[in-house]
Each structure stands twice: as structure tokens, then as C-alpha cells.
């Protein structure tokens, strides 16, 4: 019978056992509930080997392409190595190779890892400071086109990591990096479907990565990107995105400012409100949401109620 390796130890399956059965029989506390492949509580990540099609066919495309599977539905046909989705991952060293201010509050950092990292645009990495602080940053880069990882950091009044990165961290310095994480990514297969993206603040970073990925993969359906900030100065990458909008007939970029001062070429109001007004029926849409938890949560609900299918909504909320 195939072996299941978890945290460096191999466990042998019995005939007819699922991965969930084998692991639990060996005392590994994999959470589970329905054991019928619906509740997705027992989702694991396959790090090596091939899992069965059946163990993935109820997952959404992004999770499939990242090799997640349901332990209760998997009777492995070969040796596999697995981890729990939230297992502590390994940190590697990354070197800063670029630093650039994008707005009064946002800086772009380019990082190079010692070992090349396989990732999708829109995923995020964790950075660890020597003092032990860990913060998550989304990847704005596109592996197919960019040599280095790119993150965008906004100076947060209470955010010691953001102050340190912006004030101290510079080209040539190293930081500990773990990743990639998250499943807010572009998946192929629905190239003609409309896409709606809403991001607040540096929630723009992963969306820019996903937008570029979609274009790189030949997405032909309309792509509507709404970026929201409170003040016009906080809108960044405005010229670059305006240029993409001009260049690609199917890309529609909207800068939305919720405060009182609105600059030329920007719209007044919250990005999520304007997006919903422009797109009241989201039945066939794929949706990407990144930014403050309140926006992501409200918009996810509104998008679902406006007809978007749950598997077609991908979101990444900032965590503190």
C-alpha cells in the first residue's frame, strides 16, 4: 500500500483506507466533519506525489491547481507527502534587490530568494523580522514575466513592520521569507468570462498581479478593476494602470476615492459601492477581492447575493 508522509514520517495505508483514515489511525489530528467530500474541513495540501482526481473534484479551480485535496475522498494510488493547510512552513532567506516609493504612503520592494520560489500572482508571503514580528504581504509580481518577487508595503501608523521596512530595509539587506500562501489566483479555463476586481489600499498589489496573469494567459473577457482609497494621493500605479486600460480593450480601470477631495480621472465613492452599481448582476463573473476585512466581507456577501457562484469568488483580507 502507498505511504503517506506527514512531517517527515511515513505512514502506511491499509486497503480501502482514505488518507483521513490512515492519518487519524496514527493519531494525527486532521480535522474533519462530513466525510463525504462536501464540508471541506479535512482539506490537505499534497506536497509530493499525485492525488486522485476524486479527491479534488469538489474543490474550486484555484485550490485544485495548488494541489489541495480532501483527505476523506482520497485513497492514494502512490506515495504522497502531505501537510495541513496551516502547518508552519519553512522560512528562507530573501535579499532586497529593489526599493521604490510609489505614493506618499506606499513603497515597492523587489526580493530575490536564495532558492527559486514557485508561486502564482496574487498569493502572499510572510516576512519575519529579527525581533520575531511576522507580517503577510501579497505578491504583485508575475513569475512568468518578473525575475523578482514584488511586494507593496503601506506605512501603517501602528505597524512596526511597515515602519521598519520603509525606514530601514534596503537594497542588499536580507529578510526571512515564507510562502507562497493563499489561493486568490487566476485560473485558466474561463477565458471569456467577465472578471470583477475590487481592492482597497495595498489590496491593489495582488490584483495587479492577477490582472497581469490573466492578460498573460490570454483572458479575453472584460476585466473591471476598482481600486479604492480615502484620498487621491493614496491612489498609486495610476499611470501604469491607465496605460493598461488604454492598451487593452477588455481592461477597465477605475480609481475610486471615498474622501472629499477627488482628483481628475478618479471617481467619488467607495470602490465596492461603485463596483456594485456598475455591475448589479454578477451571475457569470469571477470576482477577486483584496483589502480591509470589512470591505472584503461586505463585498463577498453582496457579490454572492448578486448572483456570483461561491467558487468564483476569491478573496484575501488583510490581517493585523
Amino acid at each position, binding site marked *: 500500500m502507498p505511504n503517506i508522509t506527514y512531517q517527515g514520517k511515513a505512514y502506511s495505508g491499509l486497503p480501502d483506507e482514505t488518507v483521513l483514515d490512515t492519518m487519524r489511525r496514527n493519531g494525527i489530528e486532521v480535522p474533519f*466533519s*462530513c*466525510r*463525504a467530500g*462536501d*464540508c*471541506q*474541513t479535512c482539506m490537505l495540501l499534497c506536497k509530493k506525489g499525485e492525488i486522485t482526481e476524486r479527491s479534488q473534484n469538489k474543490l474550486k479551480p484555484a485550490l485544485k491547481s495548488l494541489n489541495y485535496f480532501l483527505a476523506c475522498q482520497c485513497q492514494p494510488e502512490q506515495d504522497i507527502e502531505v501537510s495541513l493547510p496551516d502547518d508552519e512552513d519553512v522560512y528562507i532567506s530573501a535579499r532586497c534587490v529593489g526599493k521604490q516609493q510609489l505614493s506618499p504612503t506606499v513603497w515597492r520592494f523587489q526580493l530575490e530568494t536564495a532558492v527559486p520560489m514557485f508561486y502564482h500572482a496574487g498569493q502572499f508571503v510572510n516576512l519575519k523580522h529579527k525581533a520575531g514580528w511576522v507580517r503577510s504581504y501579497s505578491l504583485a509580481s508575475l513569475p512568468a514575466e518578473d525575475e523578482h518577487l514584488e511586494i507593496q508595503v503601506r506605512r501603517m501608523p501602528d505597524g512596526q513592520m511597515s515602519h521598519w521596512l520603509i525606514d530601514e530595509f534596503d537594497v542588499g539587506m536580507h529578510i526571512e521569507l515564507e510562502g507562497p500562501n493563499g489561493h486568490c489566483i487566476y485560473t485558466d479555463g474561463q477565458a471569456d468570462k467577465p472578471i470583477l476586481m475590487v481592492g482597497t489600499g495595498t489590496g491593489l498589489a495582488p490584483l495587479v498581479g492577477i490582472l497581469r496573469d490573466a492578460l498573460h494567459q490570454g483572458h479575453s473577457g472584460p476585466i473591471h478593476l476598482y481600486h479604492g482609497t480615502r484620498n487621491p494621493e493614496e491612489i498609486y500605479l495610476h499611470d501604469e494602470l491607465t496605460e493598461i486600460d488604454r492598451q487593452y480593450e477588455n481592461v477597465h480601470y477605475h480609481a475610486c476615492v471615498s474622501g472629499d477631495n477627488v482628483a481628475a480621472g478618479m471617481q467619488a465613492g467607495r470602490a465596492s459601492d461603485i463596483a456594485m452599481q456598475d455591475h448589479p448582476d454578477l451571475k457569470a463573473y469571477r470576482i477577486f477581492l483584496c483589502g480591509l*476585512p470589512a470591505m472584503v*466581507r461586505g463585498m*463577498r*456577501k453582496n457579490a*454572492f*447575493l448578486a448572483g456570483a*457562484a*461561491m467558487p468564483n*469568488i476569491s478573496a484575501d483580507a488583510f490581517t493585523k
Partner: protein
Amino acid sequence: MSSLFEKIGGESAVDAAVDIFYRKVLSDDSISDFFDTTDMEAQHAKQKSFLTMAFGGPNHYTGADMRTAHAPLVAKGLNENHFNAVAGHLQSTLEELKVPADLIADVMAIAGSTKEDVLGL
């Protein structure tokens, strides 16, 4: 003799029903608080397991599981009115999907059988 789950259309029926059902539940102010969580994706998956069970599909839920899972909601005031409202949304979802009346009756009987465990009675 095919099972209720097969007659109703199996997994694709669950897939068709779950979004309609969860939208109804979320739009009903009398119960939406119980379902309106930060993790909508997980909640959606739970609704899917519930429908699979109610449709007579493969599941491993026991009464004790149902009791434990709903105990926090009961502590927050979940009562028979809420249960009936959810059942009503299930019924209208099935009607919307043009499921034959006799099959709807079977589904409602399964859903109804969970009442004591769900409400911790």
C-alpha cells in the same frame, strides 16, 4: 429502486440548490445573523453538507454531531422559529428548482428529523 438522492439528481442537484438556498438564508433578516460569518466559504460548504444529507445523499452525520455543531447557536438563541424559517427556505429552493412534490416531501421529512438535535431539545 433508486435512492432519493439519485431521484433528485445527486450531486448536481446539490450544486444547483446550495447557492439559491444560501442566498435565501442570508437575505432573511430573521435568521441571517446565524449564517453571516467572516468565513462565508466555510459556511457555504456547511450548507452543502446539510443539503447532501437532506437529499438523502452520502453522509456520516450523527445526531450527536448535529447537537454539538449547533450548541453555540442554541446558546445565542436559536429556536424553533429560526428552524422553521430555514426549512421554509429549503422548501422554496426545491420548488424553484421544480423538484417533484413527493421528493420535496421526502427531503423535508429528513430535514425535519434533525430538529431536536439542531435545537438541543
